[in-house]
């Protein structure tokens, strides 16, 4: 069986960043992705990213994706596409990664394996939620920005995190009307500047509201909104009916952890990071030796942090492969930690910082 120094599952921002670090250190690395194109969700991010200018802030997401792909090509990273990974097995030589490619089961052994599988959108259930026209916000984003198809003309967005705010904006850029954004919580979850963009375009934001039901024969035709009290109970008499053809759901992400469960990783439950998270240490290594996690699987955050976690896991794996001395690795990892901590400060980042600290403490807890 073929064996390489590192196998990375998932070719999104975290996986690509990890592969770049290992390749830079001189390691032979293979990235396996189930999609036809690497880059994960980066190629549908048409907005300019936040963060530090030194680190690609102000650059549009798809341009960051292009840069990462260019680097992986220049460094000779091998990327296997259209290849869903379905199993991880312990092997004396490392970890065997089983995947489907061209209709055949195949396998490769990585001395180190990094899981960068990302996250999936959460669903929301309400009467009418199975009607065509109700979709994840990420789905709508793929339709408009990758496939150039407008899912509908009149959209109601649910969820005021950055995903809901950004996709609302992009739907309007694509030519749709966003009639309203509703948020069950009493305040807006995402950045005020993202909210400001859709407000300037005339979209109202209803905090303390949710969808009561969606009506329609064969597709979404009407959407009934209702106000919620502080205990998230519907307030009778506050219903409001809007004519719409599309409902987008942006109510958080759940890490795609199946492979980590299969591999026997120990988990912890942190709602703020999306639910069950494989316990990992400061090197992003799980409780299964040689198996690392990076990006949303290690706690759903955002793309800039995912890239940093990818780098961290890549450097750590390269160190474990003796491609870096402990001293060099220490310096490199400290640089990543500095940037990552900066992304986790402020009123929006502090909670994620605390949650990650809690996770690291769990890892250190001698488990």
């Amino acid at each position, binding site marked *: 069986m073929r064996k390489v120094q590192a196998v990375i599952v998932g070719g999104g921002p975290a996986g690509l960043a990890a592969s770049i670090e290992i390749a830079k250190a001189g390691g032979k690395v293979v990235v396996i992705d189930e999609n036809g194109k690497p880059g994960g969700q980066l190629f549908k991010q048409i907005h300019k990213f936040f963060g530090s200018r030194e680190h690609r802030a102000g650059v549009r997401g798809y341009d960051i994706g292009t840069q990462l792909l260019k680097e992986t090509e220049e460094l000779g990273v091998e990327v296997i596409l259209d290849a869903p990974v379905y199993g991880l097995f312990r092997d004396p030589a490392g970890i065997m990664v089983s995947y489907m490619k061209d209709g055949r089961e195949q396998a490769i052994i990585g001395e180190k394996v990094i899981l960068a599988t990302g996250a999936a959108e959460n669903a929301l259930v309400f009467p009418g939620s199975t009607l065509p026209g109700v979709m994840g916000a990420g789905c709508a984003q793929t339709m408009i920005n990758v496939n150039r198809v407008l899912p509908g003309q009149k959209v109601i967005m649910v969820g005021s995190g950055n995903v809901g705010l950004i996709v609302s904006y992009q739907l309007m850029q694509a030519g749709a009307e966003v009639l309203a954004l509703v948020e069950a919580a009493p*305040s*807006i979850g995402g*950045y005020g*500047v993202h909210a400001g*963009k859709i407000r*300037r375009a005339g979209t109202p934001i209803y905090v303390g509201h949710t969808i009561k039901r969606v009506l329609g024969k064969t597709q979404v035709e009407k959407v009934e909104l209702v106000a919620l009290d502080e205990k998230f109970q519907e307030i009778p008499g506050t219903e409001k009916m809007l004519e719409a053809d599309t409902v987008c759901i942006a109510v958080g992400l759940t890490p795609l952890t199946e492979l980590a469960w299969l591999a026997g990783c120990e988990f912890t439950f942190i709602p703020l990071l999306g639910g069950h998270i494989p316990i990992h240490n400061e090197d992003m290594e799980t409780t299964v030796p040689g198996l690392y996690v990076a990006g949303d699987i290690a706690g759903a955050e955002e793309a800039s942090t995912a890239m940093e976690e990818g780098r961290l896991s890549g450097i750590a794996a390269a160190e474990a492969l003796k491609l870096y001395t402990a001293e060099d690795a220490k310096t490199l990892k400290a640089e990543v930690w500095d940037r990552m901590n900066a992304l986790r400060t*402020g009123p929006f980042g502090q909670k994620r910082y605390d949650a990650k600290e809690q996770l690291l403490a769990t890892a250190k807890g001698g488990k």
Partner: protein
Amino acid sequence: MADGVKITGIPTMEELKATPGLVSDQRFEKSAVAVIECVQEIPCNPCEKACPFGAIIVGSPITNLPVIDEDKCTGCGLCLAQCPGLAIFRVEKNYTDSTSMVEFPFEYYPLPEEGETVPCGGRDGQYITDGKVLKIKKTKQMDGTTLVSVEVPKQYFMDVRTICRKGGSK
């Protein structure tokens, strides 16, 4: 009903005035100047590098609110298209005796034409006044973010922040 950026998505004038991104009343009288409407401490600093005059400081930590140095700001507007939040505007209060110029980032098609009269809106997108499009700026460096400047009656220099999309809700 409570207001403020966390509830409505729109910073109140009190929230704006409490930030270091807003220059003094005296500075507005002098000449064109950048107005940074960034009221939340988010990890972001492209504006700092965008200013060739060192008039915007974020520093460390990166979550600091941008501080504008009103003496150094020349009102060139180079920072506008570099802000991922589209939260920087350029305002010339005394554009003429009776009008002000407001410039803002605009990422929609169709774009208006220079000289055209357009409905101008506030931070909530609602119609405030008609304005004349002065200039459409679109360069490679701005990476897809177009800047539109409009001439509006002077009393609206701190209110007009966009043109109403598709005519808006006039």
